């Protein structure tokens, strides 16, 4: 057990996950990074993307929404606004959200203030689909 890493995924709604894992991959703003036990202390913001960890050689995937991650040698705390495990994702809803976002995106110019919002919505939907699709 000594070489295990504790991972906590905290969202406003609940503690999504808490337990020992072997490795975590986090979608940081500056790029994806992996964490093993003994990692240097790190504070990084987290983007919309796929967070995954391995436990007993099994990989579990989460689709996460912005937040940040705090890494110390033996513990990783991820605070994100939403976190959905791959098997909990509502595929149909994600697909609809993607279509909606794509439609809206086609209509407005890039300079529009809402463009960024829509881009993020699209990103979230695509991430959800990707994460769920890998099952």
């Amino acid at each position, binding site marked *: 057990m000594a070489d295990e890493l504790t991972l906590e995924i*905290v*969202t*406003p*709604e*609940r*503690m999504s996950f808490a337990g020992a894992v072997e490795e975590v991959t986090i979608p*940081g*703003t*500056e790029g994806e990074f992996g964490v093993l036990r003994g990692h*240097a*202390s*790190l*504070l*990084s*913001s987290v983007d919309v993307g796929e967070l995954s960890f391995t436990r007993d050689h099994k990989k579990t995937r989460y689709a996460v929404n*912005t*937040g*940040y991650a*705090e890494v*110390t040698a033996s513990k990783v*705390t991820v*605070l994100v*606004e*939403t976190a959905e495990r791959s098997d909990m994702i509502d595929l149909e809803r994600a697909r609809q959200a993607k279509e909606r976002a794509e439609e809206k995106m086609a209509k407005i110019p890039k300079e529009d*203030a809402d463009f960024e*919002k829509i881009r993020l919505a699209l990103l979230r939907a695509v991430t959800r689909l990707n994460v769920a699709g890998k099952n």
Partner: protein
Amino acid sequence: MAALKDIKRKITAVHKTRQITRAMNMVAASKFKAAQTRMENFRPYAVKFMEVLSSLALRVDAKSHPLLAVREPKRIRVICMTSDRGLCGGFNSNLIKATERFIREKMLEGREVELIPVGRKGRDFFRKKTKTINARADVFSRFDMRLAVKISGDVIPPFVGEEYDELYLLYNEFVNVAVHRPSVVRLFPLPSIGREVEIEPDKRLDYIYEPSEEALLEKLLPMYVHVLIYRALVETSAGENGARMVAMDNATRNCEELIQSLTLKYNKVRQSAITAELMDIVGGTEALAKG
């Protein structure tokens, strides 16, 4: 006997009312429980968040961030967070009164005030009286962090764009089931952070920051607004159901008292009717016997 029948009808009516208030009490109780769990689940997130934000704020000179910009408060905005539904005692009216007082004070100071009502009760109340913008109603039956993000989306850009200078949030702070305290939180400019939470010395590790401290803070500050708003939403929802629970419990008890006193009255009237009838019969027999 008309009076007897009337009382009987009244008793039945109060019985039915009691049934309703009792059912509402139970519904409110279960909703309250859910809201309370939500409040508890949110706590670790809020605590962790404050820890990191404070330790970050200590290292960075945050004065430069647009959400911390202090301007002369000429135009202010006020978020008034009420519940969507009534029948919860003085829960909403107390807050609305506090909001009116707050607005009046600010206006006396010569400020221009715009109101952002969240929750149907507040919106309906203020709709015709005050200048309201970005109203949101019917939100509490199902809400999550996204609602807080949406509300922040309404208020952050205009503040950064200097359309107004200060933002206050008025909501019922949850103390316990029966006690809710109308409270005022200043959202913008954000009060200085970092002094609120004592950080344990061993938590102040030297971190690698990715991206830089400044960029991280820039990202975390809007999230801090989300956290504050979400907390108010969760507390309002718990408070509303707690208040309704108490109100309905009182109503049920009042119904019971009413039923008791009405039953007593009913029995008295019935008894006196029987006595009167008996007296009639006795009087009649006596008259017959004499004749």
